């Protein structure tokens, strides 16, 4: 039986190629998109893991804010291995009239413990940083030289120190492990920072110890020893297993997005797979009827057809895997030096296996029903003139196969995603969109039927178009579904991107301050206010700030407390704390009440409402923070809803006035100034108080805009893959209907239709198809954008018509152009040869 099925399948392959291209192309595209995304993810993840110690700078990193490590602490660390110490802070680098914010870092003789610093020209790091002829050496990223219009050998000043730029940093091994940076890197010797005079009590300085464990030493025992010797531990501890949390988070999100787009392509392509399988079976219907007349049973027929389909699916999946496996090589070559790690590329077996599983499940979900129709072809069909597709009765086995495959597809999607919750939403949203577009397709058919029969005679072309949309077997529903899904993704993502861009270009600058000034010492505050105001600043807001670390939530140590994922960032490192007698001017208190202005009791705290929710705390609960080794426990007095997008003076934690008494606080200030006074304000404050660091909001926004633009480009390119799958389905539908179209065009010509009539009919047909898909996609795309903007990005969703209309117009043009190109042969068909052939 199996042998016979196999032989029949082999012979059946000769039975025609209908549906072959569609099945192979749709599968290949979807599987390639998923395989590329997963392979790239696996390659990069392995590279990050291989280079983890170099990216962190050691086996472990200990980080203190405000104070250096004590000799006692350092002596203990040395028991376990070699150390490298450094200090980091944000300072202003100046050259003549130019100045820029820079992230200065001191490095000792032991740095780097792993990897190497690459300089241009290639010089030994420690010797170029040493003091020569009374001046300290320094090396910087090219961006710093560009901002200050310098070249190597030129001088810059940092605080009171004059530094000579000896070389440009090409590669700093542990830079990628750092968080978002506001300025280019400047590496100096410890003595140079001391000479700058910028390190004052309350200055925001991070002190780091990097530890290279002695041979035989392991991280966990070291961590354990630290916990036993120092309780509580004043520092933040990281080890090489978590060397690049922000890069890994970025990779998680990018992979999730790309995989979900790949899956959307596979879903859209699923329609093509189903259409292709239908065409495949239809072409073999006469042979199937003949085989049945000769005594073949349903099982044999089904096995033979399934084997033929499996061969095509295998080709499609293999092509997809080949493209997917090759993609990381192309992407890594394109990214070149922009990657922080060296990626050793390989064929990623696990990623490819997962992608193949997606392809296989998609085949089973979408092709099972069309293939089952093969078994339903009655032998008596042969005696009829036309081979009409048989009606397929409901079957539990088929239902279980389709539903089971669809469930496995959804489960696999959730299982491989870094963010399971988001993946579940994608599955739910995908299923809902699928249902909505299927409904939209049915509505188009129903409307076309109703309108077509009411239309006046003079609209013949339109009526012909409508009848093509509602005739039995018309691909309208599948095309609306597949094109609509692709277009809705494009509409949704374009809206998100444009809204984000608008937020950065218009909304944020309208309410954001012009500058942030940091590290204002208590004795500088008055002078700062005066300098800024005299230079033209029209709004100055100052607040004390000190960094602190949350150690307990409701008296439970942070390590054991349950913290929601979106609030996790608040317990991962130091947070800015402030005190205030009065609520901030724009405070939106949503729970509890602000303390009296003269409150002098035990510490109270006003919390950001979202963080409170993530921590699971409410009014009256306690939060404990560690400030310079001193634990402060405060009761939650009020919750505030904060508009972070204003980039104003916002603090997650505002403590009651006496809570930080005695701590070496400094001030932070925001300054609003008219556009023509910006330079004057910056210059006046910098000249008068050279130790202050200034962050220009316009610079930060420009950097953000560049990131958003880059991401937007990638997002649009990815969404186009889904749209390409939709176009494939459309092309397949046009190709499948080609014979019918030629016949109709010939008959219409015989009956007296001119080519212009036929052209108008085709144009109407595809315009209606494009418009229907586009309008449905606009609604669902807006819903996608609303969900992403409101629930993921927490922005106000505003319906911007242009991205929607542009995508809609593009979609309609694409469909009409595809339709005209695809049916050109039918329009040109000459009647005589065709009639002779019949």
């Amino acid at each position, binding site marked *: 039986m199996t042998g016979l099925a196999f032989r029949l399948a082999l012979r059946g392959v000769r039975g025609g190629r209908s549906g072959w291209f569609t099945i192979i192309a749709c599968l290949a595209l979807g599987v390639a998109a998923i395989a590329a995304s997963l392979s790239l993810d696996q390659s990069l993840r392995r590279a990050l893991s291989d280079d983890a110690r170099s990216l962190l700078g050691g086996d472990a990193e200990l980080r203190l804010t405000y104070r250096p490590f004590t000799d006692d602490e350092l002596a203990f660390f040395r028991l376990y291995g070699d150390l490298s110490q450094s200090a980091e802070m944000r300072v202003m680098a100046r050259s003549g009239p130019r100045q820029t914010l820079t992230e200065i870092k001191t490095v000792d003789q032991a740095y780097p413990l792993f990897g190497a610093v690459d300089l241009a020209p290639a010089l030994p790091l420690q010797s170029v940083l040493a003091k020569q002829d009374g001046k300290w050496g320094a090396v910087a990223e090219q961006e710093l030289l560009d901002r200050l219009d310098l070249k190597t050998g030129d001088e810059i000043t940092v605080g009171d120190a004059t530094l000579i730029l000896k070389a440009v940093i090409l590669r700093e091994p542990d830079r990628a492990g750092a968080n978002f940076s506001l300025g280019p890197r400047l590496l100096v010797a410890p003595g140079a920072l001391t000479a700058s005079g910028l390190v004052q009590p309350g200055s925001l300085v991070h002190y780091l110890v990097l530890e290279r464990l002695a041979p035989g030493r392991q991280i966990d025992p070291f961590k354990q020893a630290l916990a036993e010797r120092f309780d509580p531990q004043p520092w933040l501890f990281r080890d090489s297993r978590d060397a690049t949390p922000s890069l890994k988070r970025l990779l998680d999100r990018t992979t999730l997005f790309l995989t979900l787009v790949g899956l959307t392509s596979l879903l859209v392509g699923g329609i093509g797979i189903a259409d292709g399988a239908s065409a495949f079976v239809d072409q073999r219907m006469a042979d199937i009827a003949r085989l049945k007349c000769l005594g073949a049973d349903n099982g044999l027929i089904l096995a033979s057809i399934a084997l033929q389909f499996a061969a095509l699916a295998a080709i499609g999946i293999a092509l997809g895997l080949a493209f997917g496996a090759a993609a990381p090589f192309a992407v890594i070559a394109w990214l070149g030096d922009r990657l922080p790690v060296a990626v050793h590329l390989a064929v990623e077996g696990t990623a490819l296996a997962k992608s193949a599983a997606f392809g296989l499940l998609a085949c089973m979900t979408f092709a099972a029903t069309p293939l089952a129709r093969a078994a339903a072809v009655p032998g008596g069909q042969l005696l009829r003139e036309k081979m009409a597709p048989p009606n397929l009765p409901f079957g539990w086995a088929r239902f279980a196969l389709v539903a089971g495959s669809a469930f496995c597809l959804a489960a696999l999607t959730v299982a491989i995603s870094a963010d399971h919750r988001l993946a579940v939403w994608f599955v739910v949203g995908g299923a809902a969109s699928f249902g909505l577009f299927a409904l939209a397709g049915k509505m188009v058919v129903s409307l076309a039927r109703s309108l077509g029969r009411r239309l006046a*005679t003079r609209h013949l072309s339109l009526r012909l178009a409508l009848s093509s949309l509602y005739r039995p077997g018309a691909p309208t529903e599948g095309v609306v579904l597949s094109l609509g899904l692709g277009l809705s993704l494009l509409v949704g993502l374009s809206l998100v991107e444009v809204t984000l861009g608008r937020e950065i270009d218009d909304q944020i600058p309208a309410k954001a301050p012009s500058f942030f000034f940091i590290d204002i010492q208590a004795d500088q505050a008055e002078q700062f206010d005066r300098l800024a105001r005299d230079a033209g600043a029209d709004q100055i807001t100052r607040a004390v700030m000190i960094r602190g670390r949350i150690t307990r939530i409701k008296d439970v140590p942070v390590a054991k407390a349950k913290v929601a994922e979106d609030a996790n960032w608040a317990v991962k490192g130091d947070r800015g704390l402030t005190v205030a007698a009065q609520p901030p001017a724009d405070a939106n208190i949503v729970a509890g009440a602000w303390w009296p202005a003269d409150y002098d009791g035990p510490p109270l705290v006003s919390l950001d409402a979202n963080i409170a929710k993530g921590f699971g705390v409410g009014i009256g609960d306690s939060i404990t923070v560690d400030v310079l080794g001193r634990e402060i426990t405060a009761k939650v007095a009020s919750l505030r809803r904060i508009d972070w997008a204003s980039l104003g003076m916002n603090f997650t934690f505002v403590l009651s006035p006496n809570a930080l008494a005695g701590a070496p606080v400094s001030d932070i200030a925001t300054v609003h100034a008219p556009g023509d006074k910006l330079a004057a304000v910056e210059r006046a404050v910098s000249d008068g108080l050279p130790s202050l660091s200034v962050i220009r909001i316009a610079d930060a926004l420009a950097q953000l805009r560049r990131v958003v633009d880059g991401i937007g480009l990638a997002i649009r390119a990815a969404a186009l893959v889904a749209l390409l799958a939709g176009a494939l389905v459309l092309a397949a539908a046009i190709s499948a209907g080609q014979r019918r179209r030629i016949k109709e065009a010939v008959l219409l010509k015989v*009956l*007296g239709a*001119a080519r212009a009539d036929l052209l108008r009919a085709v144009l109407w047909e595809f315009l209606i198809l494009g418009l229907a898909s586009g309008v449905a996609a606009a609604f669902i795309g807006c819903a996608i954008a609303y969900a992403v903007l409101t629930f993921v990005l927490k922005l106000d969703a505003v319906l911007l018509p242009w991205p929607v209309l542009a995508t809609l117009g593009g979609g309609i043009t694409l469909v009409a152009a595809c339709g005209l190109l695809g049916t050109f042969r039918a329009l040109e068909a000459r009647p*005589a040869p065709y009639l002779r052939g*019949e």
Partner: protein
Amino acid sequence: MTLPIAAQPSILLENVCLTLAGPAGPVNILTNIDLAVAPAQSLGLVGPSGSGKSSLLMLIAGLERATSGRVVVAGQDFAGLSEDALARFRRDHLGIVFQAFHLMASMTALENVAIPLELAGRPESLGEARRQLERVGLGARIDHYPGQLSGGEQQRVALARAFAMRPQILLADEPTGNLDQQNGRLIMDLLFELQREAGSSLLLITHDPALAERCNRVVKLQDGRLAASEPVAVA
């Protein structure tokens, strides 16, 4: 060129030749055909398979162009007419019935019949199509698609479509070739009845001598040449 009305046969072929390109070189399909069919006259065209009957019909329908000679139908010389002009000519003057029915699979019976009326921009085309379908006994099946109709019913739809515009000339290419005897007889009765009602000229291609005998005249085509032809009485 348009002939004066009084002198017009419905179909006039003068020294018409048709040569088509075949895989083994040019093939002479029709040679020196001279034929005239008077208005309201019925002409049976008989001959063995491959003798060129269908090609002659296509020449007269403007679906094929003569290699040489002159084709004048309903007073219209086909020389120099574009494809679109020929299509408009068919719309206004000809009805054609094929052996293979050639209905539009994507349209209901009603829509199929309405097509020539709609192409001509006739008001109330659907109403007229409905009347035509009732005339051929298919009033109850107007919303059926061709795939849902029997062969006989499909050919009746084709007849209704051919006569919807009350054409000056009806061309029928073996209209009963795909039907059983009983259905074939019914269709032919209907065809001659409609032809008489409309006053159309009829060119009927058939293999059936009995059917051909029902026409006013019979001509025989043999190897692309008219083998026997009676003189034409031009009305």
